[in-house]
């Protein structure tokens, strides 16, 4: 059943969805990283209103599932406000970006908080302003600690992009589903190849995550 010919048939079909999967991943990753730093820093703000407001955003997006958020943005937003979020592509990007942005903001917050207190004290002693302390002392140390988690969540985002096929985007999974519906007996091979396809896309991310792990450990005394 698994013949080279069948694989050669199926793979090019899946390739047609590559563009959507990759662009959704890249755009939602950019949005998620952006939200992560904005929300992560806002939650450390001294202003109570900003802190509570970002806290609300983070808890709502972390407390519900991505698929619910995606459907909500896709079906409910147009009904609530009478507007569309641009296109389905944008709906997918916004859902994935905001969802993982919320998770990553906790990583940003945690990393900044875990920079040793002595660093802040030393910076104060050197008469640095609050902004200088963050930019020159805390942030460069915190970013290194964030790298592995950012890698992990980017892999999660790649997995999340498969959901956009549910709102009619023509991604890799969509073409797999189309092929399965016309050729039921080939289903095992088709879905196996879809999985392999996602895995190939994940490989560079896995590699980057491991790289990030070694960078974050370098030069840090254990314990």
């Amino acid at each position: 059943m698994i013949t080279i010919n069948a694989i050669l048939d199926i793979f090019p079909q899946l390739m047609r969805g590559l563009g959507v999967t990759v662009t959704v991943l890249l755009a939602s990753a950019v949005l998620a990283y952006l939200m992560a730093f904005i929300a992560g820093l806002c939650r450390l703000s001294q202003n109570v209103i900003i802190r509570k407001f970002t806290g609300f955003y983070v808890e709502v997006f972390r407390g519900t599932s991505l698929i619910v958020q995606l459907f909500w943005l896709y079906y409910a937003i147009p009904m609530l406000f009478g507007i569309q979020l641009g296109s389905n592509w944008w709906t997918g990007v916004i859902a994935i970006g905001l969802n993982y942005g919320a998770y990553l903001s906790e990583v940003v917050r945690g990393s900044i908080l875990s920079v040793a207190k002595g660093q802040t004290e030393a910076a104060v002693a050197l008469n640095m302003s609050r902004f200088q302390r963050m930019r020159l002392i805390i942030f460069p140390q915190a970013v290194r600690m964030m790298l592995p988690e950012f890698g992990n969540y980017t892999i999660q985002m790649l997995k999340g992009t498969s959901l956009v096929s549910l709102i009619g985007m023509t991604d890799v999974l969509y073409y797999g589903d189309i092929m399965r519906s016309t050729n039921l007996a080939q289903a095992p091979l088709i879905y196996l190849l879809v999985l392999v396809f996602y895995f190939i896309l994940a490989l560079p991310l896995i590699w980057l995550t491991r790289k990030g792990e070694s960078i974050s450990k370098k030069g840090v005394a254990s314990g």
Partner: protein
Amino acid sequence: MSSTYWSWERFFDALPFVLQGLGMTVGLTITCYLFALLFGFVWTFLRRIPNKAFHWIVTWVMEFIRSTPPLVQLFFIYYAWPMIPGIGVTLGPFTSAVLGLGIHFSTYIGEIYRSGIESVDKGQLEASKALNFSTFDKWRKIILPQALPPTIPMLGNYFIIMFKEVPLASTIGVAGILLMANTYGAQNWAYLEPLTIVGMIFLALSYPSAVLIKKLEVKMNTRFDKKATVEKAKKGAVM
């Protein structure tokens, strides 16, 4: 019934309808989770078999399952599994979801077990060997009782993560709250209220659980803080 904007009337109309799926969502979460907890041990066991090639294969199979979308894995088990000649059997949506999500998350759970086992001091192993414990007793009485309790908060987190992944099963027809909401939406062309209800149910259940687990984590950390115990021991030795 065309509908824009929020309607409380529809909200209360949809609420009982959506809630019909809550038992299924919670039930599926618990079943998937228990399956993942059990299957996690299989991975941990397989990875401990001292054969380099085998270890490499198991590691990459785990990596493969972990870094590919659970949605596709669900489709694979639900649509593709019955078509495999010889071993293929048709599985219902519920069983497919338990297998799909259970296996997917068991790879994470397996890693947690591993980290717990690795955190047990090597001296404990040596001591149990010196005391002539059998392999079974060594694991049951020495290693696992020390390895597992510190992992409880992490395992608890995965329960919440599992709960949030379970609505994926609506795509293969498990009638949880998300499928009920979509059904209501399609029947009345009103998605706003039912989907909002789904979001609220998730928030209402997962937020308190997250707070609870956070508390558990703090408690466990003070109880199982290895560094603190070692430090204490050292201090004792000096004095």
